[in-house]
């Protein structure tokens, strides 16, 4: 997608676009692929195919972002993937290339469509056979229905003379039941041949078959029931999911917790856009500010309901996964800087109480660049919140180097820890 400038939106918006358009495309694709099979929505296989087609672009979108083929915050990329995922698999979209042999993943999908179609054919025949069998059993057990059927067939036959000849020529077996079945078979075959589409309706009109049986087996009844039940289940699932994520009672809702986790993920994402990281920085800074304000509220004082909604989670929960990342040896320079900018911008004694010990411990990281950034962050926090607790010269003038031994680093860490104990005592968190 190089060279294509697109509006940059939060990733969940892009994923929602991919899912919504993916569902529409999946619906039309499945209908198109199975349009030769009447009632195809009456089969579980069709629904499985539909869900797979709907989810596939979402997975592909994530995968292409993961491999840096596109950004998952791009509206244009979302639209192209959701509408043209088949072309992407075929390598027909310029600028989006599937890595390695992954384009061959489409082939099993094609084979699956064929399997589902074949199964539908088998089931369709089974249902027609069952309907025939049911109706014929019903007729053969009721002499009045035999007479009704004979009248119906004679009045609808394409070739009455041939039918009469066939009936007259039926062999006599000496068994009344067998003779009756032979007659029924001849009448049935003529009716099916003369009225291949309308025979079910005619049987119903003549009172031989109930409306329910006709509707169920020959008038898309099963398809209608299964389609509407599936749609209803889908709607109930979405409503249930919304209610579950909204949550009830005290504390942050699942949506709010999910939003925090989402922004933590975006914040550390190595190949995210600048704007995407900035959005997460804004969100997390805002949460951190509210978290500090909430923790500095005097005991007994109530926070407003609106504030409680915004705070969502404690500062420690917010920062812990980000601070841990500083210890990862291969953390990207951009990620390291962003994490440290967040904690320095959100500094306050309340936040420092868990950030500073984490930062000091993170000085053990193998990267001297990150070590330098952490040291700078610690200096900034000391100047801002603990000016009365002077740093010893060994720390103030320390410049992390590449060739520092673990022993040297450990010595600095112990010195920082000693300083922190003094600083905390002198100016305890408010």
């Amino acid at each position, binding site marked *: 997608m190089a060279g294509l400038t697109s509006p940059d939106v939060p990733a969940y918006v892009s994923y929602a676009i991919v899912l919504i358009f993916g569902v529409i495309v999946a619906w039309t694709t499945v209908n198109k692929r199975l349009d030769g099979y009447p009632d195809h929505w009456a089969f579980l296989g069709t629904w499985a195919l539909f869900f797979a087609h709907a989810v596939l672009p979402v997975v592909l979108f994530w995968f292409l972002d993961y491999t840096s083929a596109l950004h998952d915050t791009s509206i244009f990329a979302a639209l192209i993937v959701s509408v043209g995922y088949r072309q992407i698999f075929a390598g027909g979209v310029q600028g989006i290339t599937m890595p390695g042999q992954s384009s061959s993943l489409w082939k099993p999908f094609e084979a699956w469509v*064929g399997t589902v179609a074949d199964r539908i054919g088998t089931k369709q025949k089974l249902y027609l056979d069952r309907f025939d069998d049911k109706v014929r059993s019903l007729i053969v057990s009721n002499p009045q229905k035999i007479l009704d059927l004979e009248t119906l067939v004679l009045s609808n036959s394409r070739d009455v003379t041939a039918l009469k000849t066939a009936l007259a020529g039926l062999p006599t077996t000496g068994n009344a039941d067998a003779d009756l079945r032979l007659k029924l078979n001849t009448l049935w075959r003529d009716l099916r041949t003369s009225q291949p589409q309308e025979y079910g309706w005619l049987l119903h009109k003549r009172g031989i078959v109930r409306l329910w049986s006709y509707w169920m087996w020959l008038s898309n009844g099963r398809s209608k029931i299964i389609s509407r039940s599936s749609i209803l289940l889908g709607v109930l699932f979405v409503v249930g999911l919304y209610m579950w994520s909204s949550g009830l009672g005290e504390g942050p809702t699942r949506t709010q917790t999910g939003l925090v986790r989402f922004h933590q993920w975006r914040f550390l994402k190595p190949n995210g856009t600048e704007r995407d990281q900035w959005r997460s920085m804004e969100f997390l800074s805002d949460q951190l500010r509210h978290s500090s304000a909430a923790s500095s509220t005097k005991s007994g004082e109530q926070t407003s309901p609106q504030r409680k909604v915004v705070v969502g989670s404690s500062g420690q929960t917010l920062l812990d996964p980000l601070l841990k990342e500083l210890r990862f040896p291969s953390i990207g320079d951009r990620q390291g800087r962003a994490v440290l900018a967040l904690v320095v911008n959100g500094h306050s004694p309340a936040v420092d109480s868990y950030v500073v010990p984490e930062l000091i411990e993170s000085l053990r990281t193998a990267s001297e660049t990150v070590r330098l950034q952490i040291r700078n962050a610690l200096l900034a926090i000391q100047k801002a919140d603990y000016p009365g607790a002077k740093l010893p010269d060994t720390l103030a003038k320390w410049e992390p180097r590449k060739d520092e031994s673990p022993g040297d680093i450990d010595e600095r860490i112990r010195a920082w820890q000693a300083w922190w104990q003094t600083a905390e005592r002198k100016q305890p968190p408010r």
Partner: protein
Amino acid sequence: MDTRPQLGDNELKVLRAVRKSAMDGYSLLSTTGLDAQGLVDTLSKLQNVISIKGELLKERVGEAYVALPPSNRGWVDMILSSS
């Protein structure tokens, strides 16, 4: 090796019918105007192209269920458009 058959009028009639929709043998007899034996012969020739559920016997061909698999639709479209 292409195992697809050389197509005559009857085969084309059947393909046209099942391209629109899968159907049972009775409907196919009615749509194509073939007699039962003619349909059995035609379906036998098209076995590699279409899906046939049921027996290819003159007395039972009406109960067969005939469909065009999605994988062969492109080829059939090409044949029908050039015929």
